[in-house]
C-alpha cells in the first residue's frame, strides 16, 4: 500500500469528520472559483481593447453610462442629439475623418436584443483594433441599403434561430408592450466578433427614423433646435410643421387599420432632417491627438459631451470592480483558510486516539518520517479532494448561473470559462495542506513506540 492509500484507509475511521472538513474546503474553493470566473467574464466583456472610433459624442451625462450603452449596448441612451448638430457641428469639423450616427433604445420583440439604427458606414470601421466586420464573406457595407434591412449579430441569429430573409418586429424603447408595425428583414449575419455587436441588431437608420414614434413632435423639435442655438427661419418652421402634420395623418391611416394591400414593411416615409435625432455619434479624428482637442472643444459647451470609448470602463473596472474582486477573493480565501484550520483541528484532535495506531505502524517497521508523511498525506487528501470538489462545484455554479447572468446583466457568459488564476489554487491548497498537517505530523514523528504501544 502506498502512504496515501494508508492515509486514506486510516481516514475512513473518521469518515464523518473527514467528509465535513473536506466539504468546508470545497465550499471555500467553490466560492473562490466562482468569484474568479465571474470576475473574469465581467473583465473580458468590459475590457474591449479598442473600437474603430476614438470618441463618442452624446448628450451630456455620465460618461460610463454613455460607454455602457454605446459600446456594450447595456442600458438606454440618454437624451438624443438633433440631426443638425451631427451635420453642421460634427461632420463639418475639419478634425474629423468619419462620424457615424447611431440611434438606440428599441429592442427586438423576440429575445429583447438591442436595436442599433446606423448607416452602412458603421461596418466599414474596425470593431476592435485590426479586426473588420465580416458577413459570411460579403462586405457588410453593401448590405444595409433598403430602409427596412437589418444585419444581425451572431448570437442573435443563433438564439432567435433567424437566418437571411427572417422578418421581425421591434418593441419601442421603454414601453414594453408597444410593438412597432414595421417589420425588418435580415439581409446579413455578422461573423462572431466576441463583442457586444454579437447581440445587436443593426437596422437601417432611415427605416428606423420612419417608424412612428421615432419622430420628434414638431414643436418639441423646434424648441430643442433653438436650445442648441440653431437659427430656424419662419419658412423652415412652416415646412417642418406641415411635414409633421402629414406624417401624423399617415400614422392615423395606419392606425385605422388600412393595412389591406400594403406590403408589411413597405411603407417608408422619409423624415425631415429636423425631426431626426441620434443617440450617439461615433467619431474618428484624422489624427489621434485631435481627439483631445475635439473633446475639450465639445465639452466646453453644454450641448454635448465627448467621451473616450474605452477609458471610463477601464477606470470603473480598475477602481470599482477590481476592488470588489479583491474584497471577495479575500473573503473567500478566508473561508478556505478557516477550512484549513478545520482540517488542522480535526487531524490534531484525532492524534490522541491515533498514538496507538502510529506506534503499531512503527512497531511494524515504519520509520518516523513515514508515519509523519502518512499524517501529511491525510491532510493533503482532505485539501485536494475538497479542492477538486470545490473546483467542480464552482464551475457548476457558473454553468447554472450563466443563463441568469445573461438575462439579468446582458453579459454573454461562457459557462465553460476557465480563469488562469484558478491554477494558483493548487499550490495554495498544497501549502495549506502542509501547514494543517505539519504539527500533527510532527506529533506522529515524535510518538514513542514502546510507551504508546502499552497504552
Amino acid at each position, binding site marked *: 500500500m*502506498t502512504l496515501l492509500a494508508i492515509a486514506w484507509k486510516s481516514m475512513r475511521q473518521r469518515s464523518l469528520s473527514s467528509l465535513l472538513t473536506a466539504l468546508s474546503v470545497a465550499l471555500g474553493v467553490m466560492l473562490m472559483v466562482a468569484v474568479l470566473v465571474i470576475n473574469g467574464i465581467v473583465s473580458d466583456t468590459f475590457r474591449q481593447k479598442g473600437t474603430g472610433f476614438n470618441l463618442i459624442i452624446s448628450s451630456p451625462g455620465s460618461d460610463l453610462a454613455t460607454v455602457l450603452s454605446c459600446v456594450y449596448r447595456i442600458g438606454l441612451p440618454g437624451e438624443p442629439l438633433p440631426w443638425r448638430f451631427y451635420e453642421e457641428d460634427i461632420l463639418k469639423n475639419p478634425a474629423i475623418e468619419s462620424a457615424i450616427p447611431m440611434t438606440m433604445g428599441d429592442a427586438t420583440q423576440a429575445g429583447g436584443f438591442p436595436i442599433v439604427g446606423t448607416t452602412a458606414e458603421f461596418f466599414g470601421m474596425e470593431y476592435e483594433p485590426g479586426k473588420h466586420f465580416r458577413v459570411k464573406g460579403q462586405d457588410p457595407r453593401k448590405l444595409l441599403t433598403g430602409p427596412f434591412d437589418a444585419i444581425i449579430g451572431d448570437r442573435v441569429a443563433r438564439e432567435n434561430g433567424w437566418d437571411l430573409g427572417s422578418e421581425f418586429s421591434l418593441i419601442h424603447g421603454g414601453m414594453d408592450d408597444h410593438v412597432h408595425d414595421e417589420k425588418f428583414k435580415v439581409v446579413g449575419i455578422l461573423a462572431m466578433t466576441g463583442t457586444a455587436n454579437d447581440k445587436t441588431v443593426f437596422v437601417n437608420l432611415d427605416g428606423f427614423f420612419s417608424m412612428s414614434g421615432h419622430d420628434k413632435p414638431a414643436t418639441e423639435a423646434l424648441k430643442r433646435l433653438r436650445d442648441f442655438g440653431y437659427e430656424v427661419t419662419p419658412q423652415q418652421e412652416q415646412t417642418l410643421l406641415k411635414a409633421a402634420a402629414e406624417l401624423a395623418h399617415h400614422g392615423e391611416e395606419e392606425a385605422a387599420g388600412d393595412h389591406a394591400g400594403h406590403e408589411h414593411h413597405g411603407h417608408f416615409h422619409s423624415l425631415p432632417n429636423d425631426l431626426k435625432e441620434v443617440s450617439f455619434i461615433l467619431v474618428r479624428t484624422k489624427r489621434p491627438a485631435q481627439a483631445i482637442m475635439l473633446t475639450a472643444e465639445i465639452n466646453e459647451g453644454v450641448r454635448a459631451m465627448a467621451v473616450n470609448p474605452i477609458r471610463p470602463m477601464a477606470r470603473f473596472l480598475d477602481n470599482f470592480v477590481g476592488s470588489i474582486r479583491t474584497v471577495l477573493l479575500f473573503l473567500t480565501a478566508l473561508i478556505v483558510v478557516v477550512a484549513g484550520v478545520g482540517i488542522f483541528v480535526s487531524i490534531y484532535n484525532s492524534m490522541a486516539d491515533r498514538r496507538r495506531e502510529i506506534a503499531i505502524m512503527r512497531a511494524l517497521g515504519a520509520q518516523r518520517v513515514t508515519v509523519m508523511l502518512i499524517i501529511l498525506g491525510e491532510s493533503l487528501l482532505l485539501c485536494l479532494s475538497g479542492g477538486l470538489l470545490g473546483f467542480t462545484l464552482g464551475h457548476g455554479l457558473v454553468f447554472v448561473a450563466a443563463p441568469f447572468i445573461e438575462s439579468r446583466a446582458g453579459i454573454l457568459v461562457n459557462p465553460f470559462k476557465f480563469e488562469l488564476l484558478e491554477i494558483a489554487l493548487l499550490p495554495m491548497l498544497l501549502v495549506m495542506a502542509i501547514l494543517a498537517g505539519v504539527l500533527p505530523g510532527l506529533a506522529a514523528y515524535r510518538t514513542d513506540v514502546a510507551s504508546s504501544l502499552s497504552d
Partner: protein
Amino acid sequence: MSLSIRNLRKSYIEPTGRRLPILNVESFEIASAEQVVLVGSSGGGKTTLLNVIAGITSADSGSVTIDGVDVTSLPEAGRDRFRAQRIGYVFQTFHLLPAFTALENVLLGMSFSGRKADRHRAAELLKRVGLGQRLDHRPTALSVGEQQRVAVARSLANSPSLLLADEPTANVDTANQDHILELIRGACTEHGVSLLMVTHSRDVASRFDRIENLSDFNRPEVAA
C-alpha cells in the same frame, strides 16, 4: 547463530526518578531455525526483552546481534528497516489496526519493508491461518482467536528470519491454542525461521525442546 545477546542491560526510570532495572542478560543465544520457549513470572521483563530484540525499545548497553547484524549499533531508521524486513512479531495484545481489514493489516506489514505489498500473498497467508473467508473484516468484527491469527499471518508477511511471539496463545481456548501453535511452529520449520516464544502455559511450554526461564539468565538486581 541467529540471535545472540551480550551484556544487555535495560532499566526504566520511574516517575519518582528512581532507576528500575529490568534486564541484565550476560549471554543468550538462539541458533538458526531453533525454536525456543521463554517462560517467567509476570512483570519479569519478557515483553521488554522481546521489544529490545526487535529494536522497539532501546537497550541501555550491550549488544543484540541478529543474523550477524549488530542491531543495537544501527541508527534508529536502520533498526526500523531491519525490523520491517527481518523480524516478525506477534504482539501480546495483537496490535491490529482497527481502521484496516484483516487483509489490509497483513498488507500494512508488507508496506513498511520496502517490498511491494503483495495482495495475493497476503490473502494466501490469511487462508493458511484459516481466515480465507474473513479477508475484508475489520478487527472489531473478528473474534479474539481470529484476531490472534491475523496477527500471526501479519508477522509472517515479510518472510522474517526471526519470529518473536509474545503469548500468542493466551486468550483462546485449547483447540485454538493448538491450532495457532501449529501454525507458528509449522511456518518456522518450513522456512527455517528462528522462534522465540513467550508463554505462561506449562502445557504449551512442554512441547518445545528448549525451554528458557528468564530468571535463569536475567539478573537485573546485579549492579553494573
